[in-house]
Each structure stands twice: as C-alpha cells, then as structure tokens.
C-alpha cells in the first residue's frame, strides 16, 4: 500500500508534477502513515462484518443474526413489531412515521417539525459522501439534524485561533520549513496531526537532525515525539493555558517581545515594515462608563468623522488609521471616558498572578518556565507555539489556545515565514472548484420541503413559544435554510 505521489502530503510537500505519466510515478516514493498498511488485513479479516446484523436474543445477550439489506431498509423505513418473533410485542417506529410537517412539540415551535427527530451522526465524511448524506437527511427527509464530524471535533483549540485572527482562521501551525524553535502543545505529531506524520513530522525531525530546529513537547503524556524533542514539559492535564500565561509573564517581565510590531496601529504601517499582519495591542479599550466597558474606543465616541479605533501617539489620541505608532502601555481619560490600551489590559491580567501560581497550576517548575521563555525569545521571530486537539479541547480550552496563540503575537510571527501559519488557501479559495455548484450540492431554493406550505405559516398553530423575542420568530425553515447554505459545519 503506497501513497499517491501526486499529492504533496505523501511527498513532504514536493509532489511530482501532474503531467508525470502514471507508470513513471512508480519510481517515486510516496509514503503513508502506518494505518493504510493494515488495509489488506482489514479487507480480508474473517471478522469483518459484511451483512447487516439483527438482534436475535434478549437485549444485552450479544446474539445477532445476519439479515438481508432489503429487510434492513424495509424495517428501518417502515418500523413495526420488529421483534415479535422473540416475544417482544412493542412497536418500533420507522423513519416514515417522522415524515410529517406537524410540529415536534406544539409548545416549542423552535424545535421545528417532527422530521427533526431524525438525527444523522456521522464521522469525517469525505469525497462527496457529505453531499449525499445531506441530500438524504436535509432534503429528502427534511431534518436539520445532520451532525457531521466538525460539530464534535476540535472546537476548543480552534476557537482560540478564531479569536486571535479576528474570526478569519481557525487553524494555525508552525512553519515546518523555517521555524527554529517550536512549542507543541497537546499533539503527538509523530503519530497524528494533519497533514500526518509522513508529511509534517518527517519534515520537522529531518531539520532537527540537521540541527536547524528544536522542538519542545508540552503534553501530560510522554509520547513518540520525545525521541527527538529538545525538552518535554509534562504539563498537568487541561493546564496548557496556565503554562502559556506563565511564559508570557516571563517575556513581559524581561521585556522580551517585539515592541515595534505591537506598536504598529494599522495594516498600512505594518505593510510598510514588511508585515502582513498587525495587532490591536495599542488600541484603546473603554473601562468606564460601565455600560460601554470592554469595547474598543472609536473615533465616533470622540465626535470625529468616520469609525476607526483610537490610539495614543505622542500623548494625543489619534485615529488608528492615521497614526504611525501607538503608545503600547498607557491608561488615561479621553473626553471623560476612562480607557486603557489592549496591551495594558493583557499585561494586568497576566500580572494578576505570580509566576509561582502559573507554575503550580501547570505543574512545571518556575525555573523551567523561565528557561523555556528565554529560549523562545532567543529564537524569535522563528519561534512558534501552537496547539492541536490536546492543547485546548476541554472546558476553557479556547482561552488556553488563545493564550498559546498570544505567544506568537508577542513576536509578530503570525502569517510569516518560519512563524505561525494559517492553512494555505487551497483550490477552493482560488476558485478552481466551487463546491456550491456541484450537482449534488444541496441548495435551499431546491428543497422541496421549503416550497411546501408550512404549519408555521398557519398562525393558529403558534402557541406559547418557550423562547421569547426574536429567536422564537426564526422559524425552522430559516434555520434549516441557513444550515444548508452554510455548507455543513
């Protein structure tokens, strides 16, 4: 079992050209991870289930018998007394009993029609399966409850990046080609992590061998990647955020961060200096009056034309778009509005706990945190900290992941060579393929169910809605239409 040599994943990013003849492609070595090597065994496994199995004993007895596909489809679709031959006279509902536009619960119309009782849970449905499933679940049946992979996978750590990038990207990773110091939070990239050990890990550790890169494993578990790691920080489970905050505290204490990057108030100035990102560190945030607290001060608040954030330059407030350098660490009062810079707020939050607190929470000695922070600063801007599932998929994980991402923001290495990189645009972004235009792609306007007369339009049916206000007015039609248009996640 070999990989596809035309795919960059299997060739460490160096795929063979598409015009290479198939026969010629066999000369090139495309690697895979260990999983597909067991495909043969999986295929010919005597225990492989080839037919549907139906229970033929009492529940929990573990007794099953093979049935035909026709019987399976009939029984699932139509229901009935399916276990009458076992002495069980109860009625088992089939799918057809839910194909009704009657409200699921007349007292809670926001739950939609009975069709929504059909729920499809699925894994990572790739290569067109998703479109087929959605056509069946959302259009043929008319349920909104198609719950694919992404609804249950990785939301925590991705949201940290979502906050960082101002809702532009969810996944960032270290540049495997040019980073020189990587903190890996919660990921065994020697056996998992997209794009797989044969692509990402193979590239990283070759550079480790050449002495071009050091990586630090932050993980409660000592896994395979320790084999070539510079350090292992066995952080307490779920405390990655505390460690990241501790590292930031050391960097701030020792003034080891890229001040010039954080002072740039707008994208134009950043671009002039050769950066394609900028931070809102010097933008002012309102503290009082309380009703406005927490949001950024804008020029509108000061009675100036336009709507732009405000920074302090040479002691005077200026629109961020017109300033060339914002004061980073500042607090004061402008037009009787109490404000602080975003950087000051972050600093106060970080300094609200001593390093010993972060060290205790994370289970990593203070001295180690200091050493790692210094090493990180010494390699900046080619030092990167990134998290994958283990580093943020728990309660509060989005904040942990955000703290980890901030380590990169302190050095302005986001979206830069050797830094913290978002995924490439890929063919979807470049417009070669538009998934919305695939023939099987579900479209709201084509939904036969949407064109039907709905019970919600009949106002007599509307009883006491449980959710008051605007939300209750969002009919299930609109919600479903939204889900269909949004492409599934």
């Amino acid at each position, binding site marked *: 079992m*070999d990989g596809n040599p035309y795919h960059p994943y299997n060739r460490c990013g160096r795929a063979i050209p598409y015009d290479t003849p198939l026969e010629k492609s066999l*000369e*090139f070595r495309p690697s895979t991870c260990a999983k597909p090597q067991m495909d043969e065994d999986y295929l010919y496994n005597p225990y492989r289930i080839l037919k549907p199995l139906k229970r033929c004993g009492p529940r929990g007895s573990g007794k099953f018998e093979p049935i035909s596909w026709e019987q399976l489809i009939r029984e699932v679709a139509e229901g009935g007394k399916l276990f009458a031959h076992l002495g069980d006279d109860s009625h088992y509902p089939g799918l057809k009993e839910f194909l009704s536009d009657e409200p699921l619960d007349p007292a809670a119309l926001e739950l939609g029609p009975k069709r929504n009782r059909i729920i499809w849970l699925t894994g990572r449905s790739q290569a067109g399966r998703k479109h087929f499933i959605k056509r069946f679940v959302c259009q043929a049946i008319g349920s909104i409850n198609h719950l694919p992979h992404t609804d249950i996978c990785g939301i925590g750590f991705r949201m940290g990046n979502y906050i960082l990038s101002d809702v532009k990207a969810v996944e960032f990773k270290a540049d495997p080609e040019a980073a020189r110091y990587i903190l890996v939070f919660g990921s065994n990239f020697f056996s998992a992590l997209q794009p797989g050990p*044969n692509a990402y890990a193979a590239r990283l*550790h070759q550079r480790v061998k050449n002495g071009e890169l050091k990586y630090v494993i932050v993980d409660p578990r000592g896994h395979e990647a320790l084999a070539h790691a510079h350090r292992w920080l066995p952080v307490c489970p779920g405390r990655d955020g505390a460690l990241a905050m501790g590292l930031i505290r050391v960097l701030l204490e020792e003034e080891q961060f890229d001040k010039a990057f954080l002072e740039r108030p707008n994208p134009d100035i950043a671009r002039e200096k050769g950066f394609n990102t900028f931070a809102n560190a010097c933008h002012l945030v309102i503290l009082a009056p309380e009703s406005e607290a927490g949001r950024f001060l804008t020029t509108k608040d000061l009675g100036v034309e336009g709507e732009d954030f405000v920074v302090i330059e040479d002691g005077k407030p200026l629109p961020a778009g017109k300033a060339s350098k914002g004061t980073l660490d500042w607090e004061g009062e402008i037009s009787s509005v109490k404000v602080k810079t975003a950087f000051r707020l972050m600093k106060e939050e970080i300094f609200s706990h001593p390093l010993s607190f972060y060290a205790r929470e994370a289970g990593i000695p203070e001295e180690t945190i200091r050493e790692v922070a210094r090493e990180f600063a010494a390699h900046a801007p080619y030092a990167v900290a990134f998290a994958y599932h283990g580093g943020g998929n728990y309660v509060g994980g989005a904040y942990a992941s955000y703290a980890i991402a901030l380590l990169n923001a302190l050095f302005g290495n986001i979206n830069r060579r050797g830094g913290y990189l978002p995924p490439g645009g890929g063919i979807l972004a470049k417009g070669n393929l538009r998934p919305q235009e695939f023939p099987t792609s579900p479209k709201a306007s084509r939904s036969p169910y949407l064109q039907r007369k709905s019970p919600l339009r009949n106002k007599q049916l509307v009883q006491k809605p449980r959710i008051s206000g605007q939300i209750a007015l969002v009919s299930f039609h609109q919600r479903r239409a939204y889900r269909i248009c949004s492409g599934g996640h």
Partner: protein
Amino acid sequence: MDRRTFLKISGLMGLCVLGPPISFAGSQPARPKLFFDPELCLGCLACITACKRPEEPREIDRLYLTPKEKGSYPGVTLKFQLKYCPQCEKAPCVSACPHQALKKTQEGIIRLDKARCRGEGKCASVCPYQAIDVAFGKAFKCDLCLEELEKDWLPRCVSVCPTGALRLEFPGRSFSPETTSKRCGRAPGPYGMSGL
C-alpha cells in the same frame, strides 16, 4: 596518555559503539541487508504494519520496534530501536536447522523454505538478534521480501518508511521506488525521499 593516543582510542571506541552489536565492519564482503537509522525514526510503525501479510497470522513479527526510555520523570528521553534480521554472514540459524529449511541465496539472503520447516524453533533460539518468530507450528523470517526484490521492487518495510530511516543496502543493484531518481538525476533529497 597524550592527546593523540586519547583521540585514537576514543575514535576506536566510537566505532565500536556505533557499529551493530555483532559486527566486523570492513572485514565482511558487502551483502544485502537492511540498515536502520534511529536518528530518523518517528516510531510510526509503518514498516511493522507493512511487513504483515494477509495470508499469515497477524501475531507474526519480523521487525520489532522498541522505544527505549532513559532517565526518570520528567527528564525522560526516548530512543527507538528496531530489531531486524541483518542476514548474517555466518548465520547460526542456517546451521541450527535440522531440516535444512533455511538456506542462503547466492546474493547472501537467508531464505526460509516453509515446506521443510517444522516449527521446532531451533533457529530462533540461536539467533543473536531475536529476529525469527516461531508461531502456529512455523518459523517466520525476514527474507527482504525476496519476491519483491525479484521484480526489482524494494522490500515493503523500506518502501513505506516516510523518513528514510529504514534503507536497503544491496550492492550493485537498484530498486523501485528508487533511492536516487533517474528522472532528476540527483542524490536522495532531504527527508530521505527520492527525487526531491
């Protein structure tokens, strides 16, 4: 001891440490064998899974990857060790078999004749590398995927290694997928991949 003597001795010691446990590096004629570089190993087990055959019991192992831990928590370091058959020059397994089931090919690959094997395990007991597995009344031994080599293909384990940690040394012959690419005419590129 002067500096020169010290360097000489330490150099020799280095050679001994680096070489395989039973090695007379240089004195032996070149023969086909696997070569494993732990510095490049990810521990991904692709070689081990690729070595399994659907027609054989899956409990059979011809390669063993063992992570060796050193030190105590949290200062633990890890190193991978791969046990494999080095196709010994003077192979004790060949002479140990009372049924002549193990034979050396002309190129120096030790091959097991399954029809003659009775699974007594004498070969396994004398193997200094513990590279022979005996189970279900048969011995299982690495023959570098001889049937693949005959078709000019690399052994399965070598061809799937994502980093080039596992290589085939076969003097005077080349295999596909190749370690150097005719197409690009270059030496193996970074990451042990061909034609980069």
